[in-house]
């Protein structure tokens, strides 16, 4: 930490070289899965194959990249899935089939996300409600709000201008032929969140807070502020995921169901430590891609949805067991 705050490019490079042997196993797992998918479906190496895969994985990856902030800070954000639902349903209500409204509806949705994140953070920090209960309450509330807003049956569709982000592929890109806008969004969000978590003081304070809140507070971390920022980042990423999902999934009151658990699973697969102090943005994104790859593979093999549930459950448990085992062997906490 001291070495990093010294901050010259050289020490950064040295630190990175020193860390090189400890590559997160999730990247190997992901690579193996991609090979397996390619073997079972050779079309996967065509741009349409892998680009569609990345496009489908983008919302979950963005959500996981936001969720990891809350997990590193020591909490959970269960309200993310319902915020996705609210974003999709709310946008369709506000847009009201009017394509010209997109430019103000999206900022409004981000404002809603900001408010949700601030409320989550304030409730946890100042009312001292455990985040599990606080965000659970928020989840129930937001689901109810989405139903109330749409009277139970959302009407209308999302105009093309809104669906641009989730649906459109930019044509004529060299090397890859086309590039989905969703992937572009993922790359931008991923880079920003990576920078925030691993290259700024905020990231260090988040890790300190999650590792030992009391120690962090005593060494001058503004723990309330940091925690609120973590929840805000998670909520904003949920809104982003919601906009992408609205683009290719359409409007319904259950678009977001289960996404919060998948995002947490993705973070755990990426080696994040529940209850705080350890986690990385790229590994969480890789975790999300791994989860999507597993589902894709099961789909290719022709296994039905119920089996996917069982597999997701098993993966979740195995990932945590392996992480604990690795940590114990490394002699860490």
């Amino acid at each position, binding site marked *: 930490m001291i070495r990093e705050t010294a901050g010259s490019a050289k020490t950064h490079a040295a630190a990175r070289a020193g860390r090189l042997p400890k590559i997160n196993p999730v990247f190997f797992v992901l690579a193996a899965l991609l090979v397996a998918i390619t073997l079972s479906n050779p079309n996967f190496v065509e741009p349409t194959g892998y680009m569609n895969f990345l496009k489908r994985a983008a919302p979950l990856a963005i959500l996981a990249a936001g969720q990891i902030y809350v997990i590193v800070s*020591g909490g959970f954000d269960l309200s993310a899935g319902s915020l996705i639902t609210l974003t999709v349903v709310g946008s369709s209500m506000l847009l009201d089939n009017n394509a010209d409204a997109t430019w103000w509806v999206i900022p409004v949705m981000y404002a809603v996300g900001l408010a949700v994140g601030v409320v989550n953070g304030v409730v946890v920090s*100042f009312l*001292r409600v455990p985040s599990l209960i606080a965000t659970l309450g928020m989840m*129930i*509330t937001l689901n109810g709000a989405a139903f109330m807003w749409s009277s139970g049956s959302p009407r209308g569709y999302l105009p093309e201008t809104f669906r641009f982000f989730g649906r459109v592929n930019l044509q004529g890109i060299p090397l890859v032929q086309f590039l989905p806008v969703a992937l572009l969004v993922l790359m931008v969000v991923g880079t920003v969140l990576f920078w925030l978590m691993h290259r700024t003081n905020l990231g260090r304070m988040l890790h300190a807070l999650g590792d030992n809140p009391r120690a962090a507070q005593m060494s001058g971390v503004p723990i309330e502020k940091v925690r609120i920022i973590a929840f805000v980042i998670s909520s904003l990423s949920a809104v982003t995921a919601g906009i992408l999902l609205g683009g290719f999934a359409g409007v319904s009151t259950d678009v977001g169901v289960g996404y919060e658990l998948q995002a947490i699973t993705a973070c755990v697969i990426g080696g994040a430590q529940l*209850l705080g102090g350890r986690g990385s943005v790229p590994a969480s994104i890789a975790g999300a891609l791994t989860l999507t790859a597993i589902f894709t593979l099961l789909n290719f093999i022709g296994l039905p949805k*119920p089996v996917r549930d069982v597999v997701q459950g098993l993966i*979740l448990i195995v990932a945590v067991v392996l992480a604990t085992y690795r940590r114990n062997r490394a002699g860490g906490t």
Partner: protein
Amino acid sequence: MSTAIFVKRPARRMERYAPALLLGVALAIYVAIALGLGLTRFLTPEAAIAILNRSIALGITAVGQTFAILVGSIDLSVAHLISASAVVASAIMNGDPAMMLPAVLAVLLMGALVGTLNGLMITRLEVNPLIATLGMALIIQGCLASFHGRFGGSVPDAFQYFAYGAVLGLPVSLIVLTLLVLAAWIVLRFTRFGSNIYSVGGNRDTARAAGIKTTRVVMASHIICSLCASLAGLYLASRLKSGSPWIGTEGAYDLESIAVVVIGGTILSGGKGGIWGTVAGVIIFSLIDSIFNLAGVDAFAKQVMRGIIIVAAVAFYAIRSKRIVA
């Protein structure tokens, strides 16, 4: 060492009675609304029994969840276990009264098995309880969905006595819940196992250092929790005549049972709380429902307010603690 000073709470006594206070407030609002609307028929003993009777399944599940949370764990698999229990019960009974006992035994055995697996994952493999039971929930859901369609059947009329029968004017199910609560109270208050639960929940390492077999205590708590969920599944099968694979998740018994336990003053990190708080929490929940019904609140608005009330109720006594939560 100095943290001990921070953790010490002066307002201990107040906290202890917080659930009762919340219950009193909910009751006062209910009575006020009933009187205000002139609906005095909702204030009779029969109405009180009806209110209690509405939350039998939640109550049974919450008793089990209390054990899991007190020991410093949590169980997210109860909702799916409830569904599985109801489905298995009606499939085995298949309308035949002679199959009632085997079905009940099979369901309870399944509950014990799920609880044991949860406990093993948490103690032996050291998986975070949230993740372990969430994984278990997904596994049960998957198994249930892949067998769905092959499972049919319904419970015989005799079995519906559990949900609809009455003794001395009291519903059988309410008596069962009361007995369960009393048993839980006796176990937690008067047995060595009960105090072990509190010690392990308070501080697992200290408990182990004091010679308590912590893994056994955690395992037993999880088995109790899962058995209660199975019992709740049996009750729902008896009430609805047949089990369906979504009754548990539809009632959101996993999250609601946790919310009820926490509203009852049991803290999520374990070691503090009790069964009477949970009882108060269950009654508060059904009172809230009744208040909304009396006041004619729209179903979706009801859900919104419910979310807010859960958070507000927990904040009500969490706010005074100086602990940093996450």
